């Protein structure tokens, strides 16, 4: 099991990009504490599973300081028999006035892949903003047909749709890695 921990202090900004492409980790737990005033955190977690690879990925974000902000973004594509099990906790403690926490996950399942993504909010403060959005679904057949009607095979259409799905989040990774990541995604489709 891998644990990623961060303690974020006054006015610190922390961005945590994470990518798992049939990775070696079986379970990853991310624990974040926003302890300082005005601390902010943005997690981008991208997941691509094929074959029979499996990942348990949990995030636990605790707002302790005033005016802290967090955004947890999970995007996953799972094919064949692969799977993801994801819990996303956003906790706003008493005293973390004016804080804002959000969890968002979108997971696309192909074939017999399985996915679970459950956001939770634990709130002990009155003055705050918090929310979550979570969708797990099959690939969009209309998109695939649209592309096929222009001459792309089903496989080409799926590859383009999946690359496009990850595309807006690639910029969160260091510039030097972006090309390699895109190639790695394409190679594993």
């Amino acid at each position, binding site marked *: 099991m891998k644990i990623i921990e961060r303690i974020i202090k006054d006015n610190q900004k922390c961005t945590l990009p994470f990518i798992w492409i049939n990775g070696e980790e079986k379970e990853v737990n991310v624990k974040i504490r926003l302890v300082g005033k005005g601390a902010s955190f943005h997690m981008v977690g991208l997941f691509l599973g094929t074959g029979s690879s499996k990942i348990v990925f949990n995030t636990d974000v605790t707002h302790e300081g005033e005016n802290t902000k967090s955004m947890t973004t999970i995007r996953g594509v799972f094919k064949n028999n692969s799977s993801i099990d994801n819990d996303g906790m956003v906790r706003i403690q008493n005293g973390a006035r004016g804080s804002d926490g959000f969890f968002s996950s979108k997971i696309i399942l192909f074939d017999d892949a399985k996915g679970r993504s459950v956001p939770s909010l634990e709130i002990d403060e009155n003055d705050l903003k918090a929310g979550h959005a979570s969708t797990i679904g099959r690939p*969009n*057949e*209309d*998109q695939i*047909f*649209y*592309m*096929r*009607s*222009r*001459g*792309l*095979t*089903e496989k*080409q259409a799926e590859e*383009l*749709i999946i*690359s*496009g*799905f*990850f*595309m*807006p989040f690639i910029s969160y990774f260091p510039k030097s890695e972006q090309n390699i990541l895109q190639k790695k995604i394409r190679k594993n489709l």
Partner: protein
Amino acid sequence: MLKIINLHVQIGNKKILNGINISINSGEIHAVMGPNGAGKTTLAMSLMGHPGYKKIDGEISINNKDIISLLPEERARIGLFVSFQQPIEISGVSFLSFLRTAHKALYPDIKIPLSQFKQSVINALKVVHLDENFMQRSINEGFSGGEKKRAEIVQLIILQPKFAILDEIDSGLDIDSLKIVAEAVIEVVKQQKVGILIITHYQRILHYLKPDKVHVLIDGQIKSTGTISLVKKIEKDGYAKI
């Protein structure tokens, strides 16, 4: 020639098309009009081979090649194109890279340098009065209804099919956009000798396009075929009297 013979199609257990016969020559424009639920979009989608529409009888051929058992992409490669009534949005895939991939898929033997391909896309965007920056935007994402329809015409210009089905290309277009789209379609017909099947509710675009034939589709059957005068009759009397 795009030839549709005795086409019967159902969705689930419901029969939608009950024996359609239409033949379109290269360079001809045919219009299909009909009330809601007559089967117009079913006709467009089943010509393109949508897996949700089940053909139960009939033939479809392009220049004498039977396409009925072909996949949508194989039909596209033979030269069929359909513009969607509601063009689909795809995040993270730029309009340019999609067009480039599609063009390569349709014409694997033609190598065009990217700069030259880009220029032809810019030119096509200009034809329908869309800005160059549409190339870099995600396919149809954030486009207005009218921009989506015009972007379909850009695809028609770039992908150069032999036959194109335009499913309600005019719906949601204001009068100026309608004229721009109609003129672009006329150009494509003139220059590339594309055969067009346009599906529409309204006579307005047909006055620009001047179709060679007008077919009236009711309850999954062509009830009447005529010239533009048939359109005027429908406008006056409605479909009930056809």
